[in-house]
C-alpha cells in the first residue's frame, strides 16, 4: 500500500535564518500511530505545520493521499485534521458552534448527527451549548480534537496532545487515540514524553535539531538500540567487587548488595553464562536475578547525545 503521507527532502529555514528542518524524509503508513519524539525546539511543530499548510516549506515536497500539498491543497487539506499544540480556541462561541464552523470551513455540508456523536465520543455532550471560555483545559483540548475531526479526516495530527496534562487525563487521551486508530484514522502525534511514544505508538520517529535521526517500528527500535540489564542480587553485601569480575564492567550498588551488568541481547555471546560462573567461582551467593530492557528514554538520550 502506498504511504498516506510521504515527505521528501523537506527543509525549512525561517526568516530569522534558523534552519528548523534539514532534509527530512519520512513515509507514514495508512492506519498507523506514528509518534514523532523530540525535545523542545526539535522541529516537530514546524514539520506538522508545513504539511497542514500553516508554514511554507523552503525546500522538498510532501504528498498526502498521493496529492501534492501545494498544488492540490484542496484535496490534501480536506484529508487532514490538525490539533494544535496551544489551546487556541475562541471564547465567546459555544462548543456546538465552533464544531459546525470547523466542519463547514473544511467544505463539508452540515451533519448534526455526526457532530452529536462526536461530542458523545469526546464526553462533551453536556457541554454542547457552553461557551468555550468556561471550559477547563482538558475540555478545551477535547474540543480542539473535535474541531479537527469535524470534517471526518483520514489523517489526524496531534501536536503534543498531553503536554501539561496530568497522568489520569493522559491515559484517557491515549485511550481516545487508540479508539480513533481503530476507526481507521492515521495518527501522527508529537511528544517529548518517551512514555507516551512507548505507550501508544506503532512506530517512532526521533527528531532533533531539525533532523530525523531514526524512524522504526517501536519494538524494533527498542530491540535494535536497546540494551538489556541484568541485576544480580547477592546473599550478602560485599565491600568491593571481586577482581575476577572486572572484565564485565559491573556496577555495584552503594550498599554492596546488587551488581548490574549491561549487555547487548542481540550478540551471540551475551557474556551472562560466563559471568554467572565467575560469580559462583568467586564464592558469592546469588539470591535473585532480574533482567530488564532499557526504556525508549535511555535509547533516546543515547541517540541525541551521539548526534551532537
Amino acid at each position, binding site marked *: 500500500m502506498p504511504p498516506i503521507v510521504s515527505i521528501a527532502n523537506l527543509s525549512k529555514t525561517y526568516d530569522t535564518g534558523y534552519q528548523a528542518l534539514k532534509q527530512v524524509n519520512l513515509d507514514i503508513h495508512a492506519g498507523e500511530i506514528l509518534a514523532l519524539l523530540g525535545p523542545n525546539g526539535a522541529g516537530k511543530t514546524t514539520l506538522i505545520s508545513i504539511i497542514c499548510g*500553516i508554514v511554507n516549506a523552503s525546500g522538498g515536497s510532501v504528498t498526502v493521499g498521493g496529492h501534492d500539498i501545494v498544488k492540490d491543497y484542496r484535496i490534501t487539506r*480536506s484529508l487532514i485534521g*490538525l490539533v494544535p499544540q496551544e489551546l487556541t480556541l475562541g471564547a465567546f462561541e459555544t462548543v456546538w458552534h465552533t464544531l459546525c464552523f470547523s466542519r463547514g470551513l*473544511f*467544505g463539508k455540508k452540515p451533519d448534526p448527527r455526526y457532530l452529536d456523536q462526536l461530542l458523545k465520543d469526546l464526553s462533551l455532550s453536556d457541554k454542547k451549548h457552553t461557551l468555550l471560555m468556561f471550559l477547563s483545559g482538558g475540555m478545551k483540548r477535547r474540543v480542539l480534537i473535535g474541531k479537527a475531526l469535524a470534517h471526518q479526516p483520514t489523517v489526524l495530527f496531534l501536536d503534543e496532545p498531553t503536554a501539561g496534562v496530568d497522568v489520569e487525563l493522559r491515559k484517557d487521551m491515549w485511550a481516545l487515540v487508540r479508539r480513533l486508530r481503530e476507526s481507521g484514522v492515521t495518527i501522527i502525534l508529537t511528544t517529548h514524553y518517551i512514555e507516551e511514544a512507548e505507550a501508544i505508538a506503532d512506530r517512532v520517529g526521533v527528531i532533533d535539531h531539525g533532523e530525523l535521526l531514526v524512524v522504526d517500528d517501536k519494538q524494533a527500535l527498542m530491540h535494535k538500540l536497546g540494551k538489556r540489564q541484568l541485576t544480580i542480587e547477592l546473599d550478602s553485601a560485599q565491600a568491593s567487587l571481586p577482581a575476577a569480575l572486572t572484565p564485565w564492567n559491573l556496577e555495584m550498588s552503594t550498599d554492596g548488595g546488587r551488581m548490574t551488568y549491561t549487555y547487548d541481547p542481540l550478540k551471540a555471546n551475551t557474556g551472562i553464562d560466563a559471568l554467572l560462573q565467575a560469580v559462583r567461582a568467586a564464592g558469592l551467593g546469588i539470591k535473585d536475578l532480574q533482567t530488564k530492557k532499557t526504556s525508549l528514554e535511555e535509547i533516546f538520550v543515547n541517540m541525541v547525545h551521539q548526534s551532537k
Partner: protein
Amino acid sequence: MNIYAIRVIYQQEMLRAWKTSAQSFASPVISTALYFVVFGSAIGSRIATVEGVSYGSFIVPGLMMLALLTQSIANASFGIFFPKFTGTIYEVLSAPISVAEILIGYVGAAATKSMIIGLIILGTAGFFVPLHIAHPLWMLLFLVLTCISFSLFGFIIGLWAKDFEKLQIIPMLVITPLVFLGGSFYSINMLPPAWQVVTLFNPVVYLISGFRWSFFEVADVSVELSLAIILVFLATCLTLVWWMFKTGYRLKQ
C-alpha cells in the same frame, strides 16, 4: 468552490456583530443624530443652503461616508486581526479554502455590516431633514463599492497589524482626517483656491463628491472620475491582498 466555508465564515462574522449589536448598530445611529443636532441645527441654521441644497440635507451623504469608511475598516480589520492575535487563524490557514473564498467570507461580512449601518443612518437622517435621492441606483452603487473597497482595505490593515495599537493607527491618523477634510461637511468650492487644489489629492473627496451627486446632482468633481477612483482603489486593495496571501505575508512563515 468551497461554499460551506464561505458560509460559515460569513455567518460567524455576522453573528459577532449581532451579539454586539448595541455597539455595532446603535452607536452609529446615536453619533449621526448628534452630528445632526450640532451641524445640522446649530450651525446649519446660520448657513442657508450649499449649492442650492439645505445644509442639513447637504451633509447627509458626507455623514454616511464617514460612517461607511470607519465602520468598514474597523469591522474588517478586527475580523481578521483577532483570530491572528489569538492564534485561531491556524484553522483558516489549514482549511481547503482559496484566497477568494476567505475574502468573500470576511470582507463580504464586513461590507454587509457597514451597508446596513449606512442604510440605518440614512433612515435616521430622514427624521431630521427631508431627503430626496436623485439617482438611487448610483447611490447604491457608490454605497456598495465603498463598503467593499474599504472593508478590503481594513482587511489589509488587520493582516498587517501586529498589535492593537497598529490596528488603530491608520484609521485614526489617516482615514478620519481625510474624511473630515474630504468635504463631508462642506463643498470644496467654499475653500480658498489654493486649498481646493490640495484637496484634490485627497481620494475621499472623490467618494463623497460622487455619492453626494447621486443624492442632489451637485458634485465637486465629475461622477465618472469618482467612480474611476473608487474602482482603482478597489483594484489596488485586491492586488495587495492577493500578494499578501501569495507570499504568506504576516500569516505564514
